């Protein structure tokens, strides 16, 4: 009796590179969440009895299409971009710097408090340059305690930075109401830096050179993160701290460096904002940019170039939304709703993107089916 044994045809093992998205796909993934969030908040607006089209028209118009609005948006981009840069440097090293607000406000208080007298004394250019440096120093200094606690004792930096955050906010107020208080009547604030002594403007516009500083810094960060040894060390530390130790990198020192750089950039943002835009620091002023930039940076996947685009969109929404909400008789916080929705939809799009990539990877590798590991975050 003969038996026939069924033998499956030999399995073809094909090795293909993982699915890399094309340009159109990446753009689509970036644009889709924006569209979805605009639609969703439009629905919310309609429920509240406002016309979404007028509202968004106003946002675009006031934020982008008027000369004044566009320049305001560019000025806002400068501030936000530097903060985002500071967060990228920390997050890439897997250090959760949630103390951005405290660092920003404290640096702003110092810069706004000391600038008028100093710039008067030493002249415009050296004075402004010194103040920019001071901003960096204060911001970096405020990260030393969390960096130390994390590097030496392994204390969770979420706790440490959050604590320093609130201490910094209150300390800034104490400084403004105390040593830096102006003699002028009215709301407690620092002395106002005269317009003539602020950061120089670009050409005949209302935009100050802060935007140049910000873009230069972002390019520097991009270059630094992707093409220098230090950047590589920070990224390795972020991806796999144990491997970092084995490779001979020094996590403690890198922690200090990353935190200091992060704080310095955030402090620089505050300095730029005070010296170019506001000219004075008012007590109890807290725009909470530090928090707003956290999810934004994440969803730009901590890529410097992507962040620039996202920050630009966000600045337009903020500036345009500020006046549009007033015109629609809504509280200004509606912009937060838009931002929140934007972030949710981006997170969801990201999820589906990852799922699709996993499926595509599984489909194109050996049917013996390697377990595809989740991407290292």
């Amino acid at each position, binding site marked *: 009796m003969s038996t026939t044994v069924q033998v499956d045809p030999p399995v073809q093992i094909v090795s293909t590179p993982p699915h890399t998205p094309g340009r159109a796909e990446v753009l689509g993934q970036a644009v889709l969440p924006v569209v979805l969030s605009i639609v969703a908040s439009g629905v919310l607006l309609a429920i*509240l009895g406002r016309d979404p089209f007028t509202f968004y028209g106003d946002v675009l118009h006031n934020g982008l299409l008027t000369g004044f609005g566009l320049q305001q948006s560019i000025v806002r981009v400068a501030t936000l971009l530097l903060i985002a840069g500071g967060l990228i440097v920390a997050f890439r090293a897997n250090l959760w710097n949630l103390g951005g607000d405290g660092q920003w406000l404290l640096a702003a208080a110092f810069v706004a408090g000391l600038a008028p007298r100093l710039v008067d004394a030493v002249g415009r250019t050296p004075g402004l340059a010194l103040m920019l440096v001071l901003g960096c120093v204060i911001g970096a200094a405020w990260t030393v305690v969390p960096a130390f606690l994390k590097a030496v004792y392994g204390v969770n930096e979420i*706790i440490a930075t959050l604590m320093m955050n609130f201490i910094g906010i209150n300390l800034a*107020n104490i400084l403004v109401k105390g040593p830096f208080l102006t003699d002028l009547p009215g709301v407690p604030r620092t002395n106002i830096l005269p317009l003539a002594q602020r950061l120089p403007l670009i050409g005949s516009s209302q935009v100050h050179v802060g935007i140049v500083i910000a873009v230069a810094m972002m390019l520097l960060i991009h270059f630094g993160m992707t093409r220098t040894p230090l950047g590589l060390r920070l990224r390795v530390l972020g991806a796999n701290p144990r491997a970092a130790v084995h490779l001979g990198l020094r996590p403690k020192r890198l922690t200090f460096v990353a935190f200091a750089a992060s704080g310095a950039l955030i402090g620089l943002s505050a300095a730029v904002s005070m010296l170019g835009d506001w000219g004075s620091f008012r007590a109890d002023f807290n725009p909470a940019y530090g928090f707003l930039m956290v999810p934004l940076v994440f969803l730009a996947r901590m890529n410097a170039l992507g962040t620039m685009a996202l920050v630009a969109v966000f600045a337009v929404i903020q500036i345009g939304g500020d006046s549009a909400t007033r015109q629609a008789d809504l509280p200004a916080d509606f912009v937060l709703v838009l931002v929140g929705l934007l972030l949710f939809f981006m*997170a969801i799009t990201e999820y589906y993107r990852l799922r699709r990539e996993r499926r595509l990877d599984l489909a194109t590798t050996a049917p013996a089916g390697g377990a595809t*590991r*989740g991407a290292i975050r």
Partner: protein
Amino acid sequence: MNDLLTEPVLTALIASALLAMAPLLFAALGESVSEQAGVLNVGLEGMMLFGAYAGFNGALYLHSSWLGLLCGALGGVLASLVMVILCVRMRLDQIVVGVALFLFAEGVTSLLHGAQFGHEYPRIDHTGEVDVPLLHDIPVVGKSFFHQHPIVYVGIALAFAIRWMLRRTSIGLSLRAAGEAPAALDAAGVDVTRTRTAAVMACGALAGIGGAYLSIVGAGSFTPMMTQGAGFMAIVLAMLARGKVLWVITMSFLFGVSLSISTALQLAGITISTDVIQMLPYVTVIVVLILFARRSYLPSALALPYFRGER
């Protein structure tokens, strides 16, 4: 200094400390439960805001502080569903979603309040405080501790109940395993996702009650962004307590004292600026961290999404 220890000052101090403590206690309990199960809930403040708004509306329209608190709990649960869907089920990054939830909650509650009441801020009159019959007459402690809205006593009892649950029941064990070694829990046949879902929803409910307490009992009305960092304080509280409920209770009380000490000081004639007072709890934490720097123990699988079958 003698002025500080007089009866009215102490009474005021304890009373306002308990008032400040209650929302922190509830929120920190919720966060503890969530963290023990492995979900770091940075959006706690957002859940408190949802609870504050829902609770205020509930108390306003249903004319009862208890129903208001219940509405607050439901509001918190609603907010927590976002974390459940995006973090526990879709396994997105917990910190990013948490911050987004916080920002979104600020915006939505402010928006809804503005649409509902315009620029008015209606108040609730009957805040529901009761006097415990005999104990109320004890000096100092009686008029402060035993003259609170009953939810405060419920909260303290709840804390002990949660402590018992975490330490001595199998549900508590499953919760802690979900945070410590989810793969082991999975191998034991318990659904990790469902456990974490329950933990996050419980966190939402507790945070919602905490927020509702703020708006119903604490302030009597809802103002946008009224939580003022209480949620973040609770997160830090929960992290420091490392899952030990007794520490949560003690620290909530201490934080409550330091938050409310300004009123007592004013009564005693000492004026310190509010900014300094507000800094105190945070400074205390940092000092404690520096002096007693130990590894703050958090469950090993905290903030890591659980992928079944992955090594």
